[in-house]
């Protein structure tokens, strides 16, 4: 039966093809591009397909969102309806502000997860309700299929290189029932080929990496732009014992495991900890950054309870998962023990758990600290 599906179209090739596949399956695809204001007109698909472009506000007033134009063009080619929806306020409060606050607290946030949960799979789902649509389809590389218990599960996609399950780990099961990832069974090359075959204007659009409102991955520049009032100030770089090795231009924006941008002699030194209260960077030698465990907060489990036995865990996007065990604690906390050392897990990042076959997402939580 033909259903109406809302397709989150970022103006990139992935969501363009997602829309095409929804339409090809005989459904009524309605494309929606989110106008997120700050940072991106391109925020509708986390991680890989997010653009690094920051379009100056003046240039994107009134019908001037360049990626929305591409999405509109694709919709025209596919013969589907397309709308642009204003979620600037929501993006600012749910994504940008927490991002800034996390960095100021010395953590390394991963805003794409909140953007998915709040913007795409809550607000857009509500818009789907408003438009009488069955649910939301996106260009994420992930699969939704039956889990062993008969309910729906979230699985890694066919194209493991493009895997975006890390950004989707905290979607509740009830949400999965109303979400579609049409690219889950495709390789990226097939997606591009399909886009070319359909004559979509986005077919050869360059790949973009990273966080859409952090151009060129320059976190410190982005933080300065987002928070012009709190200018970074120089502070000490010390060892864990307090021995001063040099100075930095502002501790906020550094991340554990970072080596570049320290300017220290006698290296290699790596950031081990950011202490914003003291405006201090603690550095160390590589072996000290190997973690055997991490503590988690706000842990969520897709099956309702923490998984038992050997599972797999990833502590950052594109991290090759390692064997691990999880020990649930009080108030949604948990401890994750790795079977082998893991390099520099950063507080603020998510630890995402997969089943022993490293295929199905079991849940995850937010890293608060690491143990050696």
């Amino acid at each position: 039966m033909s259903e109406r599906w809302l397709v989150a179209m970022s103006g990139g090739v992935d969501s363009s093809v997602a829309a095409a596949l929804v339409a090809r399956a005989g459904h009524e695809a309605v494309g929606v591009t989110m106008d997120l204001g700050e940072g991106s007109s391109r925020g509708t698909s986390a991680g890989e397909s997010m653009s690094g472009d920051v379009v100056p506000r003046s240039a994107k007033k009134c019908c001037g969102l360049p990626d929305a134009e591409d999405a509109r063009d694709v919709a025209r080619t596919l013969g589907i309806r397309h709308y642009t929806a204003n979620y600037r306020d929501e993006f600012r409060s749910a994504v940008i502000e927490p991002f800034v606050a996390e960095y100021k607290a010395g953590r390394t946030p991963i805003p794409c997860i909140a953007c998915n949960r709040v913007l795409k799979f809550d607000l857009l789902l509500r818009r789907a309700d408003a438009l009488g649509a069955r649910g939301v389809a996106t260009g994420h590389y992930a699969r939704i299929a039956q889990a062993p218990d008969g309910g729906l599960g979230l699985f890694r996609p066919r194209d493991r290189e493009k895997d975006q399950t890390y950004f989707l780990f905290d979607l509740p099961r009830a949400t999965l029932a109303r979400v579609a990832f049409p690219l889950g069974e495709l390789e990226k090359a097939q997606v591009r080929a399909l886009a070319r075959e359909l004559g979509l204007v986005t077919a050869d659009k360059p790949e973009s990496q990273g966080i859409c409102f952090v151009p060129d991955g320059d976190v410190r520049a982005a933080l300065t732009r987002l928070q012009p009032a709190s200018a970074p100030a120089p502070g000490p770089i010390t060892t864990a014992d307090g021995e001063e090795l040099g100075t930095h231009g502002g501790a906020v924006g550094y991340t554990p495991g970072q080596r570049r941008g320290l300017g220290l002699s006698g290296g290699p030194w790596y950031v081990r900890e950011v202490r914003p209260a003291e405006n201090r960077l603690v550095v160390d030698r590589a072996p000290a950054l190997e973690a055997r465990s991490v503590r988690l907060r706000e842990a969520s489990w897709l099956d309702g309870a923490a998984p038992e036995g050997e599972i797999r865990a990833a502590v950052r996007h594109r991290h090759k998962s390692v064997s691990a065990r999880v020990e649930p604690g009080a108030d949604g906390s948990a401890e994750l023990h790795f079977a082998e050392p893991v390099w520099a897990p950063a507080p603020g990042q998510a630890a995402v758990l997969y089943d022993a076959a490293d295929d199905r997402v079991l849940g995850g939580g937010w890293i608060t600290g690491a143990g050696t």
Partner: protein
Amino acid sequence: MNEVYLDYNATAPLRPEALSEMTDVLAHAHGNPSSTHGFGATARAALARARKQVAEALGVAADSIVFTSGATEANNTVLRQAAHSARGRDAHLVSCATEHPSVLEELRALAAEGCRVTILPVERDGRLDLARFEAALTPGTRLASVMWANNETGVIQPIAELARLAAARGVPFHSDAVQALGKLPLALAGLPLDFVSFSAHKLGGPKGVGALYVRPGAELVPLLRGGSQEKGRRPGTENVPGIVGFGAACAAAGAELELAHARNERLRERLWDGIRASLPDAQRNGAPEHTLAHTLNVSFAGASGEALVESLDLEGIAVATGAACHAGSTEPSHVLSAMGVPRELGASAIRFSFGPGIDEAAIARVLEVLPRVVARVRQARAA
């Protein structure tokens, strides 16, 4: 699907009279009106006839009409000239918060260049207060610019009174009458207006053509340079087919003005009555007694106007949240904000606007679909 177009204030379908005369000109009168030869003369004649048709709709002499690329150009030309007429002395311009962006943004630009600009607030009914307007006029005021009827709400300003107040103070007066032409009787000759802007496509003419009425004796400094067309007031080869379509649309609209007004008013009230019957908390924006007969702006508290427009579109019903230029970028309407409509309520507003071709069946279709759509959008919002 049975499609219903209720977005005439964004643009109206081309009138058959305009289409037929334009096709004729496109096919048979390719000459340049400035050329000496017979081909030029034919185009010149077509232009003259159209100018007469537009002038007749306004009750003015044909040579007071300057054709432009549209009302945006006409508005920009008048404002810029007024600012520059100060010749280095203090230039003061007075306008109104509910104006079209082609006025407001040009004023912003002129303010950045050093002009003093007063943007007057409107009352809750969308109209300017006469005393407030009068008080804003100073000896240095080079121009007052107030739109005749608003594109989003249809609210009609007391133009005659405003123009008289300005004239009494010796302040030139301009009005953007895009939404009024072909909808209201505009007897300009009896009014002390200096400049009035028009656009063809809002009354069933083609897009890309407009006009500026210039009071006989008033000076108009062209915005562009490069030719003596339009008596040196608007250089560039005339858009002959467009202008001919404009003239035809004016003639056609003028011939049925009163009939159309009565019909539109009846349809609008039927629509409003139907909305109120099924959605009693719907709120009408703009005082009905001062609103264009073919425009109805309604807020549906608790529903997103954007989502309403999209949902209706998916049902084949075309309406708008506000100005079409904002579609797809969706900041809350500056017009409703200026009228004191709270942000949330302003964001729940949609505009129905109609004209020739819209009948009772179209209104009935809207009334059949709307309650269901509003309920769904409200529920989704609350979820």
